[in-house]
């Protein structure tokens, strides 16, 4: 009940901020429409709708980091969180209360992306449903990252780190905007060591129904998600103790 109450509150705080809706939902959709328009005029295999949509969906998830980190940093700065620490709530109520409500938002955002993609010509297959399901472990990575940064950064710093850095890393190192093979070298090696490209490749494989291609991407994604959530929990508990 306490967890539910806290989760509802966090979901409302995020959804009632018009900037969150504009960036979290509007921005990825604009990019999807824009790149589809480019593809219509100058065909590029990377921007074909079945390859582009998974990438844009993952790009959209990077905003979950921003939402989650901003909410927690604001709660810390406004002493709202400190006040809640004087109430009979457990550490798990806080951690799951911040993590859980963003999951359905992430899934809903992906659903909207795939619905728009259908209008743009994506074939209606059952794999879309699976692709949406695979959003859950991927979004856990992004949400965990938000909890992590929100646990020690100030609101202004969150804007820079999560609003600029993470969204750009997700964009440039995911192989959505350009083929990483074309750049190659150190850039590709770094991209391969980070989860963004693996998340996109995982979504592409699921959407294509190519189950054999899930490996190794799923290991990277689940591994990064586990580490990000674990480190986030440890940092959150540390700041909780510091109060």
């Amino acid at each position, binding site marked *: *009940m*306490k967890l*539910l*109450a*806290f989760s*509802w*509150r966090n979901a*409302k*705080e995020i959804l*009632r*901020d018009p900037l969150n809706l504009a960036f979290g939902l509007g921005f990825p959709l604009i990019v999807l429409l824009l790149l589809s328009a480019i593809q219509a005029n100058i065909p590029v295999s990377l921007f074909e709708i079945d390859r582009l949509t998974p990438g844009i969906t993952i790009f959209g998830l990077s905003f979950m980091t921003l939402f989650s980190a901003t909410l927690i940093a*604001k709660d810390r700065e*406004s*002493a*709202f969180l*400190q*006040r*809640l*620490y*004087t*109430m*009979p*709530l457990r550490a798990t109520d806080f951690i799951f209360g911040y993590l859980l409500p963003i999951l359905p938002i992430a899934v809903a955002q992906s659903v909207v992306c795939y619905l728009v993609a259908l209008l743009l010509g994506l074939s209606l297959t059952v794999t879309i449903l699976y692709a949406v399901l695979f959003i859950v472990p991927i979004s856990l990575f992004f949400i965990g990252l938000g909890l992590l940064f929100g646990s020690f950064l100030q609101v202004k710093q969150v804007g820079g780190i999560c609003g600029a850095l993470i969204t750009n890393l997700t964009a440039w190192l995911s192989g959505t905007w350009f083929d990483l093979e074309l750049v190659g070298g150190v850039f590709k090696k770094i991209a391969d060591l980070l989860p963004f490209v693996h998340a996109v490749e995982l979504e592409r494989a699921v959407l294509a129904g190519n189950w054999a291609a899930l490996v190794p991407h799923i290991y990277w994604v689940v591994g990064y998600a586990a580490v990000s959530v674990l480190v986030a929990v440890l940092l959150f508990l540390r700041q909780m103790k510091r*109060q």
Partner: protein
Amino acid sequence: MKEAIRITGLTKRYRDVVAVDRLELSIGEGELFSLLGVNGAGKTTTIKMLSCLTEPTEGDAVLDGHSIVTDAIGVKRIIGVSPQETAVAPNLSVRENLELICGFYGFGKEKRKAKTQELIEEFSLQEVLDKRASKLSGGYQRRLSIAIALIGEPKILFLDEPTLGLDVIARSELWDVVRSLKGKTTIILTTHYMEEAEALSDRIGIMKGGRLLALGTARSLKEQAGKERFEDAFVAIVKEG
């Protein structure tokens, strides 16, 4: 008078800095006790320790039978805290803020409704009920903040600078609210406004450098310092200490 709070040897050290130094204090049930002091006197650290936000380095405090060292959850069940910052959920309406905190105390639907209604009336929040907390005036935000602190029906209420930054009218209205709570709840108030402490408190403790310099009623402190005005008495006590 039954004892609500018993503080013994309460100490907080941050590396070389002693924020609170062997504090000894007893506060009676239903008493309104004010903690005064200049910045860095140790008031907020004391409140943080008593509300289990910070662990003491040494010593203990027992709040209505619950030790802050060994029974933090027990303490949290009987206290309410209104921090210096308004600390409300900004994108939630006044009603939603109250209902949210009811949820944290595990209230069922009926009790949640009744408690919310009771506080709305007690704090005259009717006209701003559906307004988002971030859109409220400073006075209404403070009222909401204190109302939130009272949801758990606390036996002990901590009010940290409750009227900071409010205009004269809003402050006067908030004083009426605090007065209405006197006797029903034990209140620990920290403030920088001397007239506030004098007008509201049963007893006042003056802190400096983490130690309790003086303790008594406003009148007895004025007599002790040989001053007519309470503010002058406070200045004299702090300077001598």
